[in-house]
């Protein structure tokens, strides 16, 4: 199941040149770029693992591309995304976020039905990625 999260997620995967162009756009706007990764792309999992510190004072996409490539090498089967954060007062939040790597096989989600009082059913989704036991996930 193909995850659609963040900007461009309905497009074919961006090439490295396209990613660099997007990062250049973000840097041109004065946003700081950071790289994050996770194996559990649950929609409510908003805190992905940080790959190093956010990169402040960057002028060119090459530095961020270096980190993206290093992150991909280290976690070849994780999701990797790029965030661009605007620090201007009033915004102070992420302005752009897009996935730059996804695993070859995306496990997707299952629906979990929980029966509660009065035969009512509560629904939730769970990532198949978190099925694997502790230690084999990371």
């Amino acid at each position, binding site marked *: 199941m193909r995850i659609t999260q963040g900007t461009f997620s309905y497009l074919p995967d961006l090439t490295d040149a396209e990613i660099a162009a997007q990062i250049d756009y973000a840097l041109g706007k004065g946003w700081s770029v950071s790289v994050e990764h996770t194996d559990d792309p649950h929609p409510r999992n908003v805190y992905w693992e940080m790959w*190093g*510190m956010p*990169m402040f*004072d*960057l*002028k*060119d*996409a*090459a*530095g*961020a591309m*270096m*980190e993206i490539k290093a992150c991909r090498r280290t976690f070849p089967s994780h999701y990797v995304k790029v965030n661009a954060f605007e620090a201007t007062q009033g915004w102070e939040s992420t302005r752009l976020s897009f996935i730059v790597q996804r695993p070859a096989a995306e496990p997707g989600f299952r629906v979990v039905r929980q029966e509660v009082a009065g035969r009512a059913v509560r629904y939730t989704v769970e990532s198949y990625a978190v099925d694997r036991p502790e230690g084999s996930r990371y």
Partner: protein
Amino acid sequence: MDTAANATSRETAAPDAVDLAALARETGVPDVLDELERDLVGLAPVKARIRDIAALLLVDRGRRLVGLPAEPPSLHMCFTGNPGTGKTTVAMRMAEILHRLGYVRKGHLVAVTRDDLVGQYIGHTAPKTREVLKRAMGGVLFIDEAYYLYRPENERDYGQEAIEILLQVMENHRDDLVVILAGYKDRMDTFFQSNPGMASRIAHHIDFPDYSVDELYSISGLMLAKMGYRLAPDAETALREYIARRIALPHFANARSVRNALDRARLRQASRLVAATGRAVSRDDLATITAADLRASRVFNA
């Protein structure tokens, strides 16, 4: 399919001749070189080398236009010279020139010293150095007093780690950034002897000669003009004499010493104007440095 068609159409469209002069005008490089000639006094070998590099990059551009292979040259540089000979100033210009020629994408200068690259404990150096390198990408990284990176007296010094990361990036990201090392000649020579990997990756060793009295005098003229001051007629000879004497004294730092001397002359001029009560100070008075302001220097007592 599409890209193949594009490639062939580009090949057929490639011209047989290219007007380098027009290409140069288009990039605005002659303006930068002229500005360099005008603003920087002396430094003939430095200017010659910058012209060579500019010519090489221009020819490479031309080659690409006519469809010849143009491997981007390695442009890492080493600036050696005594203090105050203009290494940082030229590095700043270099960033702009390389940017106009399309060699670096952004053309900013990141000036660092050992403290910005080397960490204080194990595992601190690598992220710190990489952080600086990332900031410099697309521009020029200027490492002042680079020989401090290598401290042979302490074999556990983290400087070596910074050098290794630096070397790796200089090699693998040649089209992303240009590294300029700067320092005194003799100490840079020892640095390169103990780091042959660094020496072999730096294509351009540029030596900044000391300025002559005449050159320093012209430099002081440019500095005064920039600060909005001028010399009284008798102060001109005083300044020349000052420079000639100052060169012979220890700790002479070329243009920097001249600037300090001018700053001190401004101080004396200010005290003189404040002390001279009883009449209004004219515009002329405020802008003029007299011989007395210069001759009060301790250099003349020595």
